[in-house]
């Protein structure tokens, strides 16, 4: 874990209130998709946790939705400005544990970390099937980017304005293994339809690196810190 200064290469709206930020800086410590960074913002006391959407050498992509003061501040940042983030944080997804044909199921701003996950799954020779859910047409993002990875992608919207009308779960049916990230009700729904898998959770965080117990949640294997022992928990240990 390092506190790294990144330079903003790009920061633009890619869907309603959803921004993609591309950063230049040291990404060498990232070990797995599903890890996150914790962003320091001037005037905000706590850092903001945002999943790593994708990375390469010295390049980091984040996708965030403006939902409050901090993400609003971020949306005003401009190319060339600097931003500090503590990273990489969390365990990330375990690709080795995946079967040949996992489903990758994401909803809303749960979608970003699944992009690098899918890329890594493909690179590892697996054949993931991607199911993405959004509220409405204007909220959809990254469908093409997922497709460009050469995997089957389906999209659902709650209001039916794009893709299939309904939820992510309507796209996947029952399945043996899922990678998932998204709002709690979605995670629950996916959980109930699979026999195994890995689920990424959110929690209000004090530190983001395991020191404060601010994000400790009960699991079947005792308490786990979402920030350090998670954010990815395995199907078997989750208690709802």
């Amino acid at each position: 874990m390092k506190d790294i200064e990144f330079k903003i290469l790009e920061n633009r709206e890619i869907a309603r209130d959803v921004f993609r930020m591309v950063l230049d800086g040291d990404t060498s410590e990232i070990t797995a998709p599903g890890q996150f960074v914790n962003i320091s913002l001037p005037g905000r006391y706590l850092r903001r946790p945002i999943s790593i959407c994708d990375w390469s050498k010295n390049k980091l992509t984040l996708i965030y939705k403006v939902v409050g003061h901090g993400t609003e501040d971020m949306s005003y940042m401009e190319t060339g400005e600097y931003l500090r983030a503590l990273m990489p944080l969390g365990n990330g997804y375990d690709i080795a544990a995946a079967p040949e044909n996992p489903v990758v199921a994401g909803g809303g701003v749960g979608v970003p970390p699944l992009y690098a996950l899918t890329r890594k799954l493909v690179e590892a020779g697996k054949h993931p099937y991607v199911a993405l859910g959004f509220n409405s047409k204007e909220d959809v993002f990254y469908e093409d980017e997922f497709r460009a990875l050469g995997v089957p992608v389906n999209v659902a919207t709650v209001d039916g304005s794009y893709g299939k009308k309904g939820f992510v779960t309507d796209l996947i049916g029952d399945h043996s293994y899922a990678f998932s990230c998204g709002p709690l009700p979605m995670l629950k729904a996916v959980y109930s339809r699979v026999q195994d898998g890995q689920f990424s959770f959110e929690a209000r965080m004090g530190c983001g690196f395991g020191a404060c117990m601010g994000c400790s949640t009960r699991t079947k294997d005792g308490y786990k810190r979402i920030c350090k022992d998670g954010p990815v928990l395995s199907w078997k240990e989750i208690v709802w």
Partner: protein
Amino acid sequence: MVDISTELSGIHLDNPVIPASGTFGYGREYWDLYDLDILGSISIKGTTVEERYGNELPRIAECPDGLINSVGLQNPGMDAVIHEEIPELAKHFHKPLIANVSGFSIPEYVRLAEAMDAVKEVGILEVNVSCPNVHGGGMAFGTSCQNVAEVTREVKKVTSKPVYIKLSPNVTDIASIAKAAEDAGADGLSLINTLLGMRIDIRRRQPVIANKMGGFSGPAIFPVAVRMVYQVAKAVKIPLIGMGGVSSAEDVIEMMMAGASAVQVGAANLVNPFACQQIIEDLPELCRELKIEKLSDVIGVIV
């Protein structure tokens, strides 16, 4: 050469900077980040007799220049702390530790003190009578002179290690509580614990944290902490560990001038895991700038 060392009840500290209880766990999250031996001491996470999961989530709320936490003393319990956490920590930190303990009754405080008394790594026992996060727990003790005096007396009976009582700021008159602890035999005092605070999520129309209220700390509370350290320093003769919002070398010196012999750094560690390291690095240079040759000379210089 500037001398930034200090002393607490006969224990020499290389410098006055101590991570505050609850913000440094048992060191595990920090020992890969920097050499823990640079620290003056470490106050370990508040330990209880039994293992505790703590309060429900969410436990954290952001505030202007601070945060509210309602962790609720999550810890693996006294036995695990003594047999697993402290020995591990001792591999990375080779100085006397501060063992922060919280009981839910006088007998529990006594058991904790007895147990910690036997731990050679423990230099000081920090008795938390003030955690606002535990219903029916510490809060009651910390706001009455009688209770604070009683806990102090009972704990003193079972340990020969210096006993520091950690005071709650949520009181009308902190000096009288400090005095009660001193009169009951406390070797020193730690202050302040968190202010009781609350935030509301106006969109969800609910308190941000599950427990409704919680402990407020960070730079926002610094002026209250300085005031209380100053008031208590004028009221008692025993050494004080000052804390509450300390985030920079300047803050350390301000706390010491108010009357603290050493200083704990809490919330700052969470937003900047390198905070203590940075402060310790900055101290000598700042002392030079302020023409302080021996840092301990400034303790309580404000009349």
